[in-house]
């Protein structure tokens, strides 16, 4: 069977010169499908990855009841104080709870293109650095408490010109100085934010309520007790989440939308590619019909013929998949994109074309190759032996 298959395959391949155009079209068509699919999925996944990297399972975040995004949450000061003194919160050497009562507002700054864009400005507590050790100052210095100083997340640099160390930005309440840049070890949502002292920011903006309280738990297992204590307290009206799950949940809708869009567009393009592949394979079979008939007359089985036609179709599809994945990687890998979850400020992240995505693309292409080869393969296997005797 294998020798038969090889012979048929050789026959098919022998005629490929005459089909160069059609074969090229199929390869490029599949490349387009795979490239677009991978690119769109990567955009959604990158966003998900960034948000997921923001939180840790041994930290908890508390927001007012029903808030999915910090921006919709509002916690009074005494509620916040009660939260940080709840059991389960780790204490530092000075016996202070490692926690941060935080304020989050959207401000508008001119982006690189001149248009005003929303940026998240987060007021953090005194022990925020203990709370988030993964965030380091990479340039300049930390802001001083009580002063109108801010530090800027690294991901903002590619989108905004005026956020370098030494720059000043105008808030409603006057100028604030950028004194440092920070970055989280694994990236994350905070890299797209500005940090400042929460007390200074709250007094400058005449706010009394916080948006969230984030705490470091004694251990990941302390979460159960901590959250039960808070959520059962009716006078507090809060929701407690593990920090990583809280941020991951924010990405869910958008990632789902991207995945849905990616597959919708991918499938439509794939249908187009299948028709193109069918065209090419029908032509391949027709061009070599005489020779295939001869082989059948000699006694070659249908299986070998089916296999050979499928193989050519799959080869073309594979070539297209590699081309498409390669192009997507070339054009999109490392590119910075911004998405605004829940109508908040944009979150900037880098798109990454992962091997898993490439694999998905290859599988998709495989399906196209199979479908594009199916009917022509059947037709080839059914070529009447008498055709071998006919002169075209």
């Amino acid at each position: 069977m294998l020798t038969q298959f090889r012979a048929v395959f050789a026959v098919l391949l022998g005629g490929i010169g005459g089909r160069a155009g059609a074969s090229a079209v199929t390869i490029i068509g599949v490349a387009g499908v795979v490239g677009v699919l991978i690119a769109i999925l990567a955009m959604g996944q990158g966003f998900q990855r960034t948000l997921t990297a923001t939180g840790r399972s041994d930290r908890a975040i508390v927001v007012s009841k029903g808030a999915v995004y910090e921006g919709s949450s509002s916690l009074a000061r005494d509620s916040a104080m009660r939260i940080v003194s709840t059991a389960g919160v780790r204490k530092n050497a000075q016996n202070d709870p490692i926690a941060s009562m935080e304020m989050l507002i959207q401000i508008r700054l001119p982006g690189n293109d001149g248009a005003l864009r929303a940026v998240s400005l987060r007021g953090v507590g005194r022990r925020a650095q203990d709370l988030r050790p993964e965030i380091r100052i990479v340039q300049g210095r930390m802001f001083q408490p009580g002063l109108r100083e801010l530090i800027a997340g690294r991901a903002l640099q590619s989108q905004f010109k005026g956020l370098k160390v030494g720059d000043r930005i105008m808030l409603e309440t006057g100028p604030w100085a950028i004194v440092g840049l920070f970055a989280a070890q694994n990236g994350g949502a905070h890299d797209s934010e500005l940090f400042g002292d929460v007390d200074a920011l709250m007094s400058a903006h005449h706010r009394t309520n916080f948006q969230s309280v984030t705490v470091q738990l004694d251990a990941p297992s302390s979460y159960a007790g901590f959250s039960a204590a808070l959520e059962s307290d009716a006078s507090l009206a809060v929701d407690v989440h593990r920090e990583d799950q809280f941020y991951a949940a924010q990405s869910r809708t958008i990632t789902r939308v991207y995945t849905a869009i990616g597959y919708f567009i991918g499938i439509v393009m794939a249908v187009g590619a299948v028709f193109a592949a069918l065209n090419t394979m029908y032509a391949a079979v027709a061009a070599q019909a005489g020779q295939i008939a001869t082989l059948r007359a000699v006694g070659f089985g249908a299986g070998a013929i089916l296999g050979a036609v499928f193989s050519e179709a799959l080869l073309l599809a594979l070539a297209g998949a590699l081309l498409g994945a390669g192009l997507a990687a070339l054009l999109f890998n490392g590119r910075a994109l911004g998405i605004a979850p829940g109508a908040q400020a944009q979150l900037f992240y880098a798109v990454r074309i992962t091997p898993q995505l490439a694999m998905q693309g290859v599988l998709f292409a495989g399906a196209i190759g199979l479908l594009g080869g199916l009917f022509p393969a059947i037709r080839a296997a059914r070529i009447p032996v008498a055709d071998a005797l006919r002169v075209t």
Partner: protein
Amino acid sequence: MKYLPLIWSGLWRWRTRTTMTLLSAAMAFFLFGMLKGVDGSIKQLAGAAHIDRLISGNPALLPLPLAYLREVEQVPGVAAVTYANAAMGSYQKPANRLFVYAIDPRQYFSIYPETVAAHSDQDSMRRNPAGILVSLSAARMFGWKRGDRITIHMGSVPREAGGADWPMEIMGFCDYTTSPDTPIILMNYAYLDAARLSGKGTVQRLIVLIRDPGRSGAISGAVDSLFANSPITTRTETEKDFAQAQLSQIGDVGFFVNAIMSAVFFTLLLLVANSLLRSFRERRREFAVLKALGFSDGKVAVLVIAEAAMLCGLSALVGLGLARGVLPLLGRATGGLLPALMPPSVLFVGIAAAMLVALASGAIPAWRAQRLSIADALSVH
């Protein structure tokens, strides 16, 4: 016109091939129709939005207490404040969907001048608690007349007395100039609030008319700071920003659409060009015969382009037609967020694109047809 049978027969010389190419190309135009349709809807919605109107709502979509209205009215720079409570309704069948806005008719029309309703109609609606004004599109769709008493089912607004069927009386019509095809009903908020089961005394959002659009940022900030320390905070922004934020949450749609469609049309070009080249190669003799019969070089070239145009035109019609049919389904799936119709501009641009593809892909075979040597092509060997 008289050349049509000739061109048509050339196109369908090899039925399977042409069908495959046509279907493949149709997919490209289908995608074009869908993507451009969605992008166009987004632009249309954002474009119709005003910069002298602010939308104030809770970021978590919690309803605002109506009492907020008085406070917002006091903010300097504010000309007027009103509210609009939107709900999905259906008439007789769940499939007959329409938008129901509960409003204060005294303020609404002055703040939304693009919604046109006769003053007499506005008055009649105001005086009758259950009175409503219906958009012209809704009236057309359901055959409604002034004085009709109808019942609208609003699943998201159950009644205190039970059920969710709201009896209404049509007092007149309104013309939504910015979205003329969307079926809309305007009802009295007072009637809704009095009879509804939950959410009494609240509205989804406030609409603020300001005197100076240049101060929209400052006024928005002032409104938000009024409620920053309350349990129900607000986020206020211009209507334009609100529309854009709603719909461009997932990223820069326009850019993606153009990038994807460029890739798709490039492939389409190759597909059609390849198909035409192959077809021409196998029909050289027939073109030579036409020349022998007296068809000039130029005419034969034009025949090739015409065939390409017919192929691309047919594909475009099939693909765009399909998109036209599918878009309303998408509209329904997003809860009416996107208009259910494909803007006619998309159709025109699609056909124009088809003709461009035809020209580009037919150029080389047409050139070859023009240069074809009759004697060579006709020689028996």
